[in-house]
């Protein structure tokens, strides 16, 4: 894995709340980074990664992330899209104001990334379930209590 | 030299400690009476008692400022600082007990006794023999001569004023001063809740004397007039308005208020059991727990004030906010029927023991909010 990819995964860990083992386990990391690269203006992914690198350690880390990444007019919508990408496997069109300011790529439409991405969505993991229509838990498993997260 | 005279700095400090004890002791009775009034009734009485109680807090703080000014260390957590009610307070002529009791004519008359204006006739020894009163605490007694007491609270404060003048005079002769306390320990109006501009720091003899005179005036008043120098009605006359059912106006003669009528509904109060004790409340009951919790919180409050008086004046603002919370805790107790007492109600017992306060230093910390 390149340093850039490592940095991307580390950012994703912060944003999604899942550790890198989980994220890499989906097999989607490279693809998601590529999506960001293809949709965002040149250099913006690196801006995002740089902003991540600048975050302080310790208890101020989360508030700082909230302020300098999620709260940033440019990076915030991108970061939120990345979270949704991880959780749902789909890309959401960036807000109109963002598109007007920073330029819209033609690929920036709301779309499901791929069949794999759908099945890799973290939302199912969070729910203690499985993607509807895939990774079934087996006959009768539904009669047992859920094991969350 | 009169036997009442103060001649040493230590003596002055113990007088001032007694003064704090005295000022504080009036608070519980006033508060119980105030909060026993049923909501929405007796609006005038509510205002009158509330204002007096607030001023007693002011006097307490003045006493702390005086003590701090001469290098003392106010401590409200000393065992016995809070009296065990009923208790005796000194008055001019006759002995009487001060009770924790609900709002009633009798209770207001009790308050009038507390605030009765009186000074010893000139030339008379201000100390009079004290009768033995059993286990009750005595306030306003002479610190050195425990068998004697002051003729009145006014005399007691007058003795302090004389002591201040005397001791500072002696000190000045040697190029020194008794006002050696850290000015940063003074509580100023910034930190005191009500009445902008009333509270001033005590840093020298002049400010000390001003403070003492204000306490005397606001409290018992001067015999000659019903208004103090700030054109405010003295406590005695404020209560007196409730008895007469009429407000005083400027120019009124003592005992003859001619202002607007004051409507008093003596029955519109919860019949709190007089001088209720924890022991009166069934052990283990929720009510018992609530009453004990109140005492505990009150002890912590005193610890917090002590902290404020000892170099952290900003803590007073927080303490005052907690005092507002006691108001709510007190009203809760007052509105709970007291089991097995024929229709009487519970109330705060003010039984504050060191144990209840927890470890002495833990006071402020344990008030950390639960958020």
């Amino acid at each position, binding site marked *: 894995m390149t340093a850039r990819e490592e940095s991307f995964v580390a950012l994703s860990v912060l944003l999604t709340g899942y550790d890198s083992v989980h994220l890499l386990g989906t097999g989607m990391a490279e693809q998601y980074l590529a999506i960001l690269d293809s949709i965002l203006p040149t250099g913006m992914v690196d801006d995002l990664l740089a902003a991540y690198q600048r975050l302080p350690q310790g208890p101020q880390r989360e508030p700082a992330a*909230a302020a300098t990444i999620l709260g940033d007019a440019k990076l915030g919508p991108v970061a939120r899209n990345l979270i949704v990408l991880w959780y749902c496997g789909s890309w959401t069109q960036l807000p109109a104001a963002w598109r007007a300011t920073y330029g819209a790529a033609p690929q920036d439409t709301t779309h499901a990334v791929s069949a794999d991405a759908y099945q890799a969505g973290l939302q199912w993991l969070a729910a203690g379930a499985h993607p509807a229509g895939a990774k079934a838990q087996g006959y009768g498993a539904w009669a047992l209590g859920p094991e969350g997260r | 030299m009169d036997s009442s005279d103060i001649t040493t700095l230590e003596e002055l400090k113990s007088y001032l400690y007694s003064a704090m004890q005295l000022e504080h002791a009036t608070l519980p009775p006033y508060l119980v009476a105030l909060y026993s009034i049923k909501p929405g009734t007796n609006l005038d009485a509510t205002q009158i008692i509330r204002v007096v109680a607030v001023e007693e807090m002011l006097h307490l703080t003045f006493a702390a400022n005086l003590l701090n000014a001469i290098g003392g260390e106010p401590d409200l957590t000393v065992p016995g600082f809070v009296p065990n009610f009923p208790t005796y307070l000194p008055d001019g002529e006759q002995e009487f007990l001060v009770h924790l009791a609900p709002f009633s004519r009798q209770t207001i008359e009790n308050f009038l006794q507390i605030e009765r204006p009186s000074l010893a006739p000139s030339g008379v020894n201000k100390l009079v023999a004290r009768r033995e009163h059993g286990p009750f605490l005595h306030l306003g007694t002479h610190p050195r001569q425990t068998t004697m007491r002051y003729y009145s609270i006014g005399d007691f404060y007058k003795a302090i004023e004389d002591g201040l003048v005397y001791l500072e005079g002696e000190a000045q002769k040697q190029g020194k001063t008794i006002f050696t306390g850290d000015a940063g320990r003074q509580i100023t109006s910034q930190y005191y809740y009500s009445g902008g501009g009333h509270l001033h720091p005590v840093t020298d003899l002049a400010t000390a004397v001003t403070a003492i005179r204000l306490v005397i005036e606001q409290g018992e008043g001067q015999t000659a007039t019903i208004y103090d120098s700030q054109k405010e009605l003295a406590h005695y006359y404020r209560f007196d308005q409730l008895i007469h059912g009429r407000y005083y106006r400027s120019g009124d003669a003592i005992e003859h208020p001619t202002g607007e009528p004051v409507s008093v509904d003596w029955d519109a109060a919860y019949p709190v059991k007089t001088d209720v004790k924890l022991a009166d409340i069934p052990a283990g009951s929720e009510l018992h727990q609530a009453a004990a919790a109140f005492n505990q919180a009150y002890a912590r409050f005193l610890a917090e004030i002590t902290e404020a008086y000892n170099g952290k004046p900003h803590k007073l603002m927080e303490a005052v906010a907690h005092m507002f919370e006691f108001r709510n805790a007190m009203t809760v107790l007052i509105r709970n029927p007291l089991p097995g007492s024929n229709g009487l109600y519970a109330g705060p017992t003010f039984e504050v023991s060191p144990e209840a306060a927890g470890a002495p230093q833990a006071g402020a910390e344990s008030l950390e909010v639960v958020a």
Partner: protein
Amino acid sequence: MTSDTPFDAVIVGAGVAGALIAKQLTGAGLRVLLLEAGPGTSQSFNGYSRHLQQFYGATSKSAESPWPPAAAAPQPDSSDLRNNNGYFVQRGPDLYGSTYTRTWGGSTLHWLGVSLRMLPEDFRMHSRHGVGRDWPLGYNDLAPFYARAEHELGVSADVADQRYHGVSFAEDYDYPMQRVPLSYSDRVLGAAVDGMTVWFDHESFDLKVRSYPAARNSIPRGAYQPVGAVDLHDDGSSNPPLLGGRCQGNTSCTPICPVQAKYNAGKSLAQADRRYLTMLVQAVASKILVDPANGGVQGIEYKRYQDPASTRFTTAVAKGRVYILTAHAVENARLMLASGLTGPRGQVGQTLMDHPALYAWGLAPLAIGAFRGPQSSAGIEDLRGGAFRARHAAFRFDIGNDGWRSTTGAPDSTVSEAVMSQRLFGTALRDQLANLLSRQVRMSLAIEQLPDPANAVTVDPQYLDALGNPRPVISYHIDDYTKAGMVAASGVARALFRRAGVQDFSESGNGSWFPSVYYQGREFHYHGMGHFSGTHAMGDDPQQSVIDPDQRAWQHHNLFLAGSGSFPTMGTSNPTLTLAALALRTADHLVATLQQ
């Protein structure tokens, strides 16, 4: 009867009715031509898997998402309701909320698999409750066919659960497979609901969360052999199923069962005798050719297209001794009307019905494990019958296992709300999702609807599809009988949530895009259940009905209209099992007459 055509029967539509009839007729050695308007891509396992991938990759996971229509055989789509510009021409006043699938296997590809029998009282609505009309058949007439249909569809249930409101079974009968286990959330809800009593006037009903008969493979009883996934090839060969012997809990019955553990019509077609069956896919029936002298059908004109993306076609005529329309309640009526056949007193297309349904949804007090199991495994059936039906509709509840997917688009919408609106990220986000998603509860409240001639499918030459076939024009309204049922049903749902301590979010659907009706000052958002019926109702009286009890058109001696369009009323049962029973009954009739 002698044969002057190569086929004994021409069947239009490869859905459940057509498949069952084809299987029965070919089994009897009768030659069958089956025309299917849509493509046959779901016949092979690989083709079916591509549909599954299509679903995975779809941005909207709607009921139609795995099954996109061919340009030449368009179909309604649930998103059409947002702006009313789809295949249906909706004339209102209310919107008809349901959809169906025009492809090989029909709507059973995306059905839920609920296989309820109708109640005995459902067949006698007019006699018993003074509303609607009676069937020319009774429960007892259909009971043997129900049993056979349950066998054909592979229904999992325990008879012990299904005896209520007069539903009876032969003494030694039980379903071919054991009931599908109740989900954990059913059991939690059941613990709160069971024993709850509802009063309608002076009649009380004890509610119970119970498993319903489902056409999904579970544990077989006795010697029953469940039928798994279909794998038919163009050369006519077929592989034994590798999958689908048992439900795995994919929580995806609608829109697609990944393993085909749930019945679809392809399974019956795979069992048809291929020696006697000719299947033409991508063949859209466009006109019924009738002999004006005696009303007899002379052939069915159809348009065949080669490319599902294109609308180029060739026209041909299919001929047989008899003609059986099993295209769908709407498509049957549409084809008749497009051919100028309006039936006795113009009844073709009239009395269109559905089960308008409400959603009730909320958050359970504890995690109940949403998004697991079959899409739904239990319901509440106790209010399907009762004296109250004289005044308002009966209803049944389906309890979902898929969280708020149907109502809000969860879990995606839950994620989106948390990220985009609430601006959560990291562990706070994960905690919130874990907490919210696993507690989501949803019920569908399916409400009975009465036959009303004003609710109708018609055609209008100004509205044509790409092949020039007229599109269905739908007039529809929901009457007070059904609306009063909505009031009752939502009241029960609310009470039920209260007992279970479920935080009720149903009211927050007020901004929903689902169509709504107003009643007693309240707004009800409803959706369709896909339960089209009534468009060619059967009866004893040739003047008062379109077909006879054998589903033969009164006016055309060799034309059969089969499917839920034949229902005079539909009670509260999901219609598939009943239409399957009717199809088997008609098949018996056809075998008996055609073999003469």
